[in-house]
Structure formats: structure tokens, C-alpha cells
């Protein structure tokens, strides 16, 4: 019975890994269509992908966007998480739900709403609306991770610092911040991934000149099917895997993702 159960678990694991493994292996095929397993091996699609301006430019855009969104959302999230965990005021739970709302509202709806709002108000800056939208969707992941870290921190540790003569600001800098730093870093890494991989929000907010990598891949896929997509994907998967291992080491992956 236990063996049957483990066999079933093995099948599910294979299902989860299948598309990723196939992409990685197919990226090394030499032909013009992705093959699994490749009949001939080569690195030519890596070279091809890295020579395509749309991929390189959109990748740079995505890196900028994800970094900027994460860096802007983090202080907001830190302040909000601290206020919610350490504050005592009516409506705390409701406020917490409100701050996590970008996770409940479908992101395609968020994307459209921002498009509409900016168009109605006549704001034409693509970068602004894109960064704003990404700050909004990375924010709740950061709030949740930082709140989890803060709630594990004994408030008496902060009080002890205050009795020893530390001002509230100094207490925050010397005691609170160092102790929640792993949570903040983990939240930032995950926020970066969320922003970098986002499609359904960016879909409505980019234009031909300002594109993100997932969108570039998506539009490339409409007319091409060559393994250069697999090559790019493999590079991204490698980075994601490294980040995942890092997150698991820092705080445990699950605390970041929640559930």
C-alpha cells in the first residue's frame, strides 16, 4: 500500500517537473523545432536567443522593473507590517485583509483598472504606470513575509532595548531590523520573481517599445516555435532555482509563499 502511495507521489512529481524538464532538455536541440530528447545536441539556440534584440532589451526592462518595484514596495511593506504587528487599534484585521487585497482581485482586473485610470486621467507615462502596478502586486507578498518575521520577534526584546536607553528609532535600527532582515530579504527575492514573471498585469500596461521579457516570449511564441525560447527559459529556470534554494536556506520557502 505504501509503495502504491509512493508510486502515485512519484507520478505527481513527474507531472510537476515535466514541462520544466522538457524545456531544459529541448533547449539543447540543434534542429529548428524543439525536440525531446534532441536528435542532435547543440548550444546554437542560446547564441541565437542572446543575439535577439527583443529578448535582450525586454530582459533589461524586466530587470529594471522588478528591481525598482521591489525596492519601492519594501519600505512601504516594512512600515505597514510593523504598524500592524506592533500597533493596537480597532480594525486591525480588516486593514490587514485590505493590504492583502491585491492577491484577491484578479491581476488582469488590476491591470485593466490601472490602464483605465491612467487613460482617464491623461497620464501617458508607461514606466510610471508599469512600476506602480508592479509595486502594488509585489507589496502584499512583502507585507506577509515581513509580518511573519515580525510576529515571531518577542516584543519584550524591543522593550529591553528601550529600558537600556535606546530611542525608538535606534531600537528599530539595532534590534528590530537585524532580527527581521532574513524575512525582508526573502520577501524581496520572492517579490522580484513575482514581478519578473508577471504577464497578466503587464499585458495591458506595456507598449511596443517598453516590453517585459515574459511578454516578449509570449508574442514571439505566436509566430515562432524554435528552441530559442527554450534556451531563454532554461536560463530563467536556472536563476529561479538558485533563488528558490536561497530562499529555502534563509527562511524556508513556504513562509514566503504562504498558503
Amino acid at each position, binding site marked *: 500500500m505504501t509503495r502504491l502511495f509512493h508510486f502515485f507521489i512519484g507520478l505527481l512529481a513527474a507531472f510537476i517537473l515535466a*514541462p520544466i524538464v522538457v524545456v531544459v532538455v529541448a533547449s539543447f536541440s540543434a534542429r529548428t523545432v524543439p525536440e525531446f530528447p534532441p536528435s542532435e545536441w547543440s548550444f546554437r539556440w542560446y547564441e541565437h536567443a542572446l543575439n535577439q534584440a527583443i529578448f535582450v532589451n525586454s530582459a533589461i526592462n524586466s530587470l529594471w522593473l522588478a528591481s525598482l518595484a521591489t525596492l519601492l514596495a519594501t519600505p512601504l511593506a516594512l512600515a505597514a507590517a510593523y*504598524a500592524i504587528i506592533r*500597533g493596537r487599534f480597532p480594525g486591525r484585521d480588516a486593514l490587514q485583509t485590505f493590504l492583502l*487585497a491585491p492577491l484577491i482581485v*484578479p491581476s488582469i482586473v*488590476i491591470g485593466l*483598472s490601472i490602464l483605465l485610470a491612467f487613460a482617464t486621467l491623461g497620464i501617458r507615462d508607461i514606466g510610471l504606470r508599469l512600476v506602480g502596478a508592479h509595486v*502594488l502586486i509585489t507589496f502584499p507578498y512583502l507585507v506577509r513575509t515581513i509580518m511573519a518575521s515580525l510576529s515571531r520577534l518577542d516584543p519584550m526584546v524591543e522593550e529591553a532595548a528601550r529600558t537600556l536607553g535606546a530611542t525608538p528609532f535606534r531600537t528599530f535600527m539595532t534590534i528590530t531590523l537585524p532580527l527581521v532582515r532574513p524575512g525582508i530579504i526573502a520577501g524581496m527575492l520572492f517579490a522580484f520573481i513575482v514581478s519578473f514573471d508577471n504577464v497578466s498585469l503587464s499585458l*495591458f500596461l506595456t507598449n511596443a517599445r517598453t516590453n517585459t521579457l515574459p511578454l516578449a516570449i509570449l508574442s514571439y511564441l505566436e509566430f515562432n516555435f524554435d528552441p530559442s525560447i527554450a534556451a531563454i527559459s532554461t536560463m*530563467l529556470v536556472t536563476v529561479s532555482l538558485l533563488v528558490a534554494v536561497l530562499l529555502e536556506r534563509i527562511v524556508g520557502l513556504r513562509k514566503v509563499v504562504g498558503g
Partner: protein
Amino acid sequence: MLKTRSGVLLLAPAILLMVALLVLPVGYLIRFSFFLGQTGVQTTGGFTLANYVKLFGDGFYLAILWKTLWVSFVVTVISAVTGYPLAHFMWKASKRWRAPFTILVLSPLLVSIVISSYGWIVILGNNGVINQLLQYLGLTTAPIKLMYTNFAIVVGLVHIVTPFMVLSILAALEKIDPLLSEASATLGANRFRTLWYVILPLALPGIGAGTTIVFSLAISAYVTPAVMGGSGPNFITTLIYHQFVTLFNWPFGSTVAAVLLAVALTVVFLYVRVLSRLGAGGAVTR
């Protein structure tokens, strides 16, 4: 403890962000859904329910709505049935297995949906891994159409929602006192009866949270139906995209989006109601 004034100061930027980029824009979207469109942001005439009448009165749109709900339901059921064993395995797994399995189960989340969709094309396509295998084994002569079907959408969606289902159930399982299994055994229950009468009922809140999250994720997924479901609008989300980007009918697109939002919020609301009736607390978040 924080003084009220400092608390307000710390929360102000976050609340401002929410209001400026979520509350107000969604308000615009809902308002927009009650006007008739010209092109883009231009509207004609006054307040009207015409868009809603059009959406709910036309068999074409209703079929898309119905298909979205039906496919999402199937995805939810399958992911619950496959997610429970995975969560149970992780719950009981030794330390050595836990970390790699966590990364494995969460991998669909860490890899862009665009990438996994591409992978599914390679697997399910007419010249894909499965069709080649079937032909090699002589089980079929012509390729079977797997890609660009509802089946493909279900496969793609189950794949991306698995982490959420597993984590929700695992969170519930981990709250169970391990002594309960032992107590059940001392009272004469075998492993299946212990699972059925003790563990599963206690895991139910997790399964409930998981199905809520998964259903909301499924109805609002865009990439999977767009890439794996073939051309033309076939899902609420692709219909919205079609209206906005192809037809440039923003008000009608807003109407469809407002309906999607209403469905998503209703699901969460129902879940919270059921949960509070069960006497448990908690909020649904992905």
C-alpha cells in the same frame, strides 16, 4: 506598543498605494462598465446597463462564462484530489526529503507561466512527446489532438495551481497534534480509518482554503487559456483581452472584467462565511 499617531504615519503610504492603484482604478473600471463605448477611453451616452444585458443575453458570451466556470471547477477538483496526497506526503516526509520536495512542489510558482506553457506545447503538441511516444508504441497512427483543447487548459491550470493547493492543505495538516493518530490507533482504528475519521476532517479547513484559492486563480488565469486553448476568446480573461486589445471596446471589456471580479469576490466571501460558521478564523490569500 506603538502610539496611534506613529501607527497612522507608518500605514499612510501603504493605504495611499492601495487607494491610488487599486480602489480608485477598480472604481473607474466599474463605472466604465455602465457606459457604451466608442474607442478606447471614449464613451457615448449616459449611464446604461446595456453592456450587462449584452453579456448575459448573448449565447456566445454565456458559453464562454460557463466554460470558464466549468473548467475552473474541474481544475479545482483535480487539484484537490492530487494535492492532498502530496501534502500528506510532505507532512510525513523526513527532514531529508522535505526541502527538495518543497522546492519541487513550489516550482510551478517560481518558473514563469510562459515557460511552463511552452513546455506543455512541446509535450502535448501534434509532434510532441506524448504523440511521438504513442506512435512509436503503435497505439495510434495519426497524432491525437491534445493541444489547443479544454484538456490542455485543464492540464496547464492544474500544474500552476498545485503549489497553492498543497500549501493550504499542508498548513492545516501541520496544526494536527501528532498524538491524535496514536490516540486513534490505541482506540483500535487502522490507518485508513484514522485517515478518514481523524485526519481528513481536520484537514478540511485547509482543503476549503485551497479550493477557494485555486478556483479564484483558475477563473482569472490568462496565459494558460491564451497559449494552450487555441485562438479566439475561449475564457473570461481572453474575452476581456479580446475586447480591450483587439476590438478596442473598453466599456464592454470593463463589464466582463467587473463580472470576473464579482465572481472572484463572491467565492472568497462564501468561503469566509462557511469558515466563520465552522468557527474557524482566517483570511484567504494566495
